[in-house]
Structures are given as C-alpha cells and as structure tokens.
C-alpha cells in the first residue's frame, strides 16, 4: 500500500500546469454521482452490502490504469489516521462525509490526483475530475470517459424518466455537479459580487465561499456550481455555467483595472503590506493567512510582485491544520499550529 505520495505533496501534479484564465479561475471540477443497481444506497444499506461494493471495487480497480492518469490507488478509509484523513480532505481528494463512514468507505485516487473516486459516500460511487484553470468542457469529457470505463464492470442504477438514480433528490438525473474555484478579490473589494449573486442564482448557478462561514468568504475564493441536475443535458448545464463564469471573469478583470486606477498606490500598499506580514510574522491564523495570500495573489496577477502562483497555491494547502500536523508528525494545539504556519510561510517566501 502506498499512498504516501498523496500525503507528502501539497500540490497535486495536475495543479502544476497553468490552465486557461488561471489568474482568476484556479480550477475546474466535474463530479458524477453513480449507484449500483443491485445494492441499497449507503444511507440505509447494511455494512455487509457496502463491504461487498468496496471489495468489488478494490478487486477490479486497484492499480488499474485509466489512460495517462497513472494507476489508481485504492485506499480504505479505515486504514488512515485522523491526520491522514484531514490531509486528503484538505487536498479535496475526499469529502469530510467520507471520513465519517470509516468502516465501509474507500477511495480510488489516480497517480496524478486528477481522478478521485469515492466509494460508499452518499452514493456508491462519486467520480471527480479536476483540471487546472477554466476547463469545464475537458473535465466533463474526461469524466464521461472514466464513467464509461467503470461501467464496463458494473450495472448502474438508471431510470429512463429520472436518469441516474441518486440517494439525494438534488443529484438525480445527470448526477453531475460541475464547479470552478474562482479568486475574485476586486469584485469583493468593490462590493459588486454580493449584488450579482441573486441574478446568478436566477440562472440556476450557485456561488459559495470556499472557506469560512455564511456570506464571509475567506481569501476571496468562491465556488461557482450548477444547482439543477435534472431536465438539462450535461452539455447544456456546463454551457450555462461557462456563460456565468465568463461574465464573472470579465467583471473581475474590469474591477481590477478600475481599482488600480482609482486606488493606485493605496492598492499597492495594501498588497505589499500583506506580503510583508506573510514574510515576517511569527504567528499566523488561517483566516489572516487567507486574506493576505489573496492580496499577494492579486499583486502577482497585476504584475506588482514577481512570484510563482504555484507557491501561493502550495502555501494554501501546506498550512492547513491537517498538513501542518502530518509534517510535524504529532497533534498540535491551535497556537502551535499558528506558530508553525507562520514559519512555513516565511521559509517558502524567503526561498522564493
């Protein structure tokens, strides 16, 4: 069993490439929910039934290769320590829900971490595909290929009228949730985003902060995804979502230009202060870090700071509580984490 590589590297191999519009769209994801026709859904199925599913998937797909993504590693969730589970969640390779279903849950992750398949989460199978930048169409095409490949050996729960049958009515039909992660600092600073959200929702598209609670989005990062899964083809859902994302990109670019013109040195000051804080502070909590990293990323995008975006992405993951503790190889108190986080950031930024 070798899943050490998933723990050791903060940045997934697929993230190392720059995708289209990568200054604003950090990543694209397509997720397909699938169930096996002959088993009850995980919410109600007895453990023996779910273990059947798990064992079958392990037998058929562990170390199987899907195209250029490299062999898939089967990971039984119960074999992971609490901290290892946290790391995989922080890398978005598995969901928090999966870690709670310890005895029957598993995951298949491709070597390049582009494909991750969760087993016995809310549905029997959840196929996830990640792409860097704004590449929803490619993510969909590849998700379909993986879906067909898996289907060679399993019998999917499908109904002519309702489509792919899922445990939750919010996923029925295509079983597809497509999303992009966007960095929208200028729309937040100019308070435009909150005004745009109701109109976006009207188009069946949901905007949510990635970290943080309620309307407060940490680090100006947002997940934009489709709401409905029934009654529209996957292609149409993606096209509608792309339309909204394109608009957001345009508005964000425009807002950035305007900010730079109107605030000038004021904006530069804000950006460089954040860089200074990241480089020299000794205690750093996740909330402040997210804000500061967002400013610095904006500085890189505006060509004020010469720094690789990958370092910023890497820092975002490296400094999450699970990752910090994995590398310290022990459980840390929140204060110890804040101190270690500050030191990790300092080191990375000074090396750069």
């Amino acid at each position, binding site marked *: 069993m070798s899943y050490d590589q998933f723990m050791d590297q903060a940045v997934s191999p697929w993230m190392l490439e720059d995708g289209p519009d990568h200054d604003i769209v950090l990543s694209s994801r397509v997720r397909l929910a699938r169930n096996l026709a002959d088993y009850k859904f995980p919410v109600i199925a007895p453990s023996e039934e779910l273990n059947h599913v798990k064992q079958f998937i392990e037998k058929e797909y562990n170390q199987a290769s899907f195209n250029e993504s490299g062999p898939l590693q089967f990971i039984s969730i119960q074999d992971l320590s609490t901290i290892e589970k946290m790391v995989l969640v922080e890398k978005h390779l598995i969901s928090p829900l999966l870690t709670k279903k310890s005895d029957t849950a598993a995951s298949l992750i491709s070597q390049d971490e582009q494909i991750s398949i969760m087993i016995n989460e809310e549905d029997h199978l959840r196929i996830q595909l990640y792409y860097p930048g704004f590449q929803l169409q490619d993510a969909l095409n590849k998700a379909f290929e993986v879906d067909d490949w898996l289907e060679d050996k399993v019998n999917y729960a499908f109904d002519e009228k*309702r489509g*792919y049958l899922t445990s939750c*009515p919010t996923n029925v039909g295509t079983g597809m949730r497509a999303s992009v992660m966007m960095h929208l600092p200028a729309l937040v600073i100019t308070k435009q985003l909150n005004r745009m959200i109701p109109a976006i929702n009207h188009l069946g598209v949901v905007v949510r902060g990635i970290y943080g609670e309620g309307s407060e989005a940490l680090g100006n990062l947002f997940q934009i995804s489709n709401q409905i899964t029934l009654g529209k083809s996957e292609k149409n859902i993606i096209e509608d979502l792309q339309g909204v994302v394109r608009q957001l990109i345009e508005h964000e670019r425009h807002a950035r230009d305007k900010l730079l013109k109107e605030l000038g040195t004021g904006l530069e000051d804000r950006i460089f202060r954040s860089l200074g804080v990241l480089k020299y502070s000794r205690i750093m909590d996740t909330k402040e870090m997210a804000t500061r990293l967002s400013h610095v990323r904006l500085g890189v995008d505006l060509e004020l700071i010469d720094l690789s975006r990958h370092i910023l992405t890497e820092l975002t993951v490296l400094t999450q509580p699970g990752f910090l503790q994995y590398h310290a190889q022990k459980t840390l108190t929140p204060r110890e984490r804040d101190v270690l986080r500050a030191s990790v950031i300092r080191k990375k930024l000074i090396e750069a």
Partner: protein
Amino acid sequence: MKCQQCQKRPATVHYTHVINGKKTNIHVCEVCAKDSGYMTYPEEGFSLHDLLTGLFHLDTPKVDYQGHPFQQIEELRCPSCAMTFAEFKRIGKFGCIDCYHTFSNRLDPIFSRVHSGNTRHLGKIPKRKGGHLHLKKQLADYREQLATLIENEAFEKAAIVRDNIKELEQKIRSKEAGDNDEL
C-alpha cells in the same frame, strides 16, 4: 441589535418561542444560538445540500391530481429497503432505487421544486442499459431537427430526417421485441 445573551456580537438569529400560548422573542447571535440549542448546525456548516434539502419540507399537495385525498400517504413504504415516505421527507434521501418507484406519484412536485420545474432526465444514458434508450434519445433529437427544418421550410432536408425517423422507429420496435424475447 446586540445579542441578548453575550451582549457582544450582533444578534442574527431571531426566534419566537411559544409555550402555553405565551410568546417570547429571542434575539441572539449565532454562537449563543448554537450553544443554547436554538439552532442546530451540521458539523461542517451549511452545505448546498442542506439548503436544497430544506426545499422539500414545504407543503406537498394534500390531494392527488384526480382530487382524491392522499390518505395513507405517509405510510407508503418501500418494499425493498423499508423506507417510508415520511422518513424520506425527514432525511431527504432515498434508500434504494425501488424508493423511486414506490414514491413515484409524489416525486414530481419535489423534483420540480429542486430542479426549476424539471421532472424528466435529459442527458447521458449508460452504455449498458440496452441500446434502445440511446436510439430513443436519437429519435427525440431527430424529431426536434424535423420541427426546426419544417419551420424553416427546408422541406428537402426534412424529408431525409423524416426517413431517418421511420428507420429508427423500426429499429426500436424490433429491438424492444427482441428484448422481450430474452425475458
């Protein structure tokens, strides 16, 4: 307005308590609301899923489309997994694929509310689920094309599409007959 309990954070949870007809208004912040049990949060905060699940708790019609009251509707029970309709509404999850058939009559309003008025799948079809579903989807596509062509008065092209439709219908008929033989 400040939170009644901690007097520090702004009150964002407004809550009316009625006990034996006596009304009490409570204005607290989210932290105090959670601590005092006025509000329960799932551990990871509100997910999109929770938000959408909330949608089916709206009242569903008390009579069916022919005007007959749904009497023992809450007693509907899936024969395969024993999930009742009431249970399904409470947890917002189906237990197995047979739940879809068992609760079939009551699902349209729920799907319609969650999926902006849609109740029928349009999209990918599993390879394995018999070729004729793919053919049916293609048939629907052809019919749509035909309508557009007629509208644009492109009758020559329309005739070709019409022939394709005929051929496809024939194929589906023989395929369905074949499927029945296998059973």
